[in-house]
């Protein structure tokens, strides 16, 4: 689908026309060790210790679930943690991160990669002029059409809402039409019997000053962990090695993804598993609605498919099926 400019058998070729697609390294699994609001950090070290103690047995279970691999090879698993520095910044990295890492260590867990939520929303500081990831993903949304969609529909980019089906038709207000004005329910496309209809707010505010929703940034975060995003063919959110003993006083001084464990398995992975508090369940349901409607670059998908096939580690074709969750009790 690379389009209008001919590529085969022509004696003349212009390279400006076809940027190459960078490849990224892959773990088998990217394991997310929870997610917390800024307020949770304010509750102090005991709150963090409780969090990681609750995560630990489930993280072990997830690890055990990946193997065994063909040829008796050890699975590559990396762990990550996403800090919310987008919606609020109550503390600096220097104040917030060391207790977090200590609490994880206490529970016997290592955070290999630490990421900032702003990294999913803002342009990559390492690449001036690059597009904000959230905007790139927004442009890649292709809405699942409810039956009867002929091609005549307003694009999601303008409404800012994404559903998994068909909304309730808007009601007329004219009293004369009251007799025919019966309420019609919304419906989920491909529902099993009955609908679970969801309408996800992707952003709010005007185009030049958008606030992305938590659900949409979480979708970008999943796609980044799955190694499925590129910016003009280049890799995005490439981890930067960081000294765990030296965190800055400003979030913006911290790269979007830092690698804290030298020699850790790659950040990007064939599949993801997130161990999350149950209160994030609605957000992650929304993430599934979004992921189901993102059209990824065929080149990138092919790349992942080839790599995983070469390792005899087959992947589901659907991106949603590459994500998984644990919502443990007591988290």
């Amino acid at each position, binding site marked *: *689908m690379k389009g*209008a400019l001919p590529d085969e058998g022509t004696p003349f070729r212009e390279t400006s026309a076809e940027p190459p697609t960078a490849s990224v390294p892959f773990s088998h699994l990217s394991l997310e060790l929870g997610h917390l609001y800024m307020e949770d950090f304010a509750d102090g070290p005991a709150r963090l210790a409780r969090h990681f103690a609750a995560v630990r047995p489930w993280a072990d279970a997830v690890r055990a679930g990946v193997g065994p691999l063909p040829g008796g090879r050890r699975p590559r698993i990396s762990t990550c943690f996403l800090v919310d520095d987008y919606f609020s910044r109550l503390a600096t990295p220097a104040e917030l991160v060391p207790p977090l890492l200590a609490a994880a260590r206490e529970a016997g867990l290592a955070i290999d990669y630490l990421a900032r939520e702003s990294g999913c929303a803002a342009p990559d500081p390492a690449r001036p002029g690059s597009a904000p990831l959230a905007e790139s993903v927004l442009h890649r949304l292709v809405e699942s059409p409810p*039956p009867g969609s*002929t091609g005549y529909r307003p694009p999601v980019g303008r409404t800012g809402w994404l559903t998994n089906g068909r909304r309730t038709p808007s009601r007329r207000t004219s009293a004369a039409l009251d007799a025919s004005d019966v309420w019609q329910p919304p419906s989920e496309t491909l529902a099993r019997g009955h609908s679970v209809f969801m309408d996800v707010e992707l952003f709010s505010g005007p185009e030049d000053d958008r606030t992305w929703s938590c659900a949409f940034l979480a979708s970008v975060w999943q796609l980044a962990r799955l190694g499925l995003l590129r*910016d003009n063919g280049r890799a995005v959110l490439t981890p930067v090695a960081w000294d765990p003993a030296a965190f800055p006083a400003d979030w913006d001084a911290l790269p979007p993804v830092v690698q804290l464990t030298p020699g850790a398995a790659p950040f990007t992975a064939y599949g993801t598993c997130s161990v999350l508090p149950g209160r994030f369940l609605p957000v992650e349901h929304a993430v599934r609605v979004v992921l189901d409607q993102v059209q*990824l670059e065929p080149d990138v998908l092919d790349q992942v498919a080839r790599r995983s*096939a070469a390792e005899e580690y087959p992947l589901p074709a659907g991106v949603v*099926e590459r994500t998984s969750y644990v919502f443990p009790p007591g988290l």
Partner: protein
Amino acid sequence: MGAQESTPRPARPVLACGEVRTCLLPTRDAVDERAAETLLRLRADERVRVSRRPNRCAVSPDVLTGVDCRLPTANGAKVRAIGTVAARAVLTEGRVLQSTAYFAAPADGPDSRRPWGYYLVRPGLLVPVGRLPAAAVAEGFLAGHRPEELDVGSVAESLLARISRAELLDYDTPLNTASTVLRWAARPAPAGSEPSLRFTVGEEGLRTVALRLPEGTAPAAVAGLCEDLALHDWLLTTVGDKLDGVRLGTDDQAAVRKVLGPLVDHLLHLWMPRARLERVLSGLWDALEETPGFTRQWDALAQRIRDQLALRALLARREALDARLTAR
């Protein structure tokens, strides 16, 4: 994470259809390459492809629109198809804007709708529920859709509208032109027969092109051919219409120059058939050069404009000379 279906081999399409809208970019002057890239940047993470040889041409990334509806058919057969229509915009020499919406379709598909991800990994493919009557759909598509049927034209139109809303366009065009619609349908040529093309000029700016092509021709390449046809047909139509309205024999020099000037400034240099066609499709132009003779007609129009301008320059010079002699 189980061993399920991996990334699919695309089913070989037996039908590709599309619609091209061609118009003058609504702005005073042709835009430069940077402006062209800004206009066609439909995706933040994908570059606009720019080509400078043999002419300047910028192509947007493909954007997709999901559909699930009946396809138009010539015989009234009810065929439901699900998938995505691809759309892209092309800007030639910063002056002529085109948007194309197109799809391909395989001979058959699953008996019911699959999860959306199944269609998203097949961009630009409409998968029929059951079997696809390719000939009836090709014919029905060219004839136009009924309500509740696939409306590819509105996908092309909304892309054109999206680009035309850009702030850098001033809507002060140097000449008034009509936009044209070219609808095309391509099926594989029967074994042993040559590729063929049937171009029909209809009412109200609608052109239809029925194509039989070598099996395996990429739908994007067919779209490229039809954009090329639409561009040159639009040039012929636009320049022909302008000359049609002018009384060249008239003494009103200013009025004639007002019509001919913008044609020279903005359109005459755009004629360049087959600028970047796949070689296998290039031969199809030959048929059109034979009958009706696209380039022959263009050369005649262009020559007429140049002759008129030369004649008028001569007349103007003689008048000036006469005036000076009289004044003595």
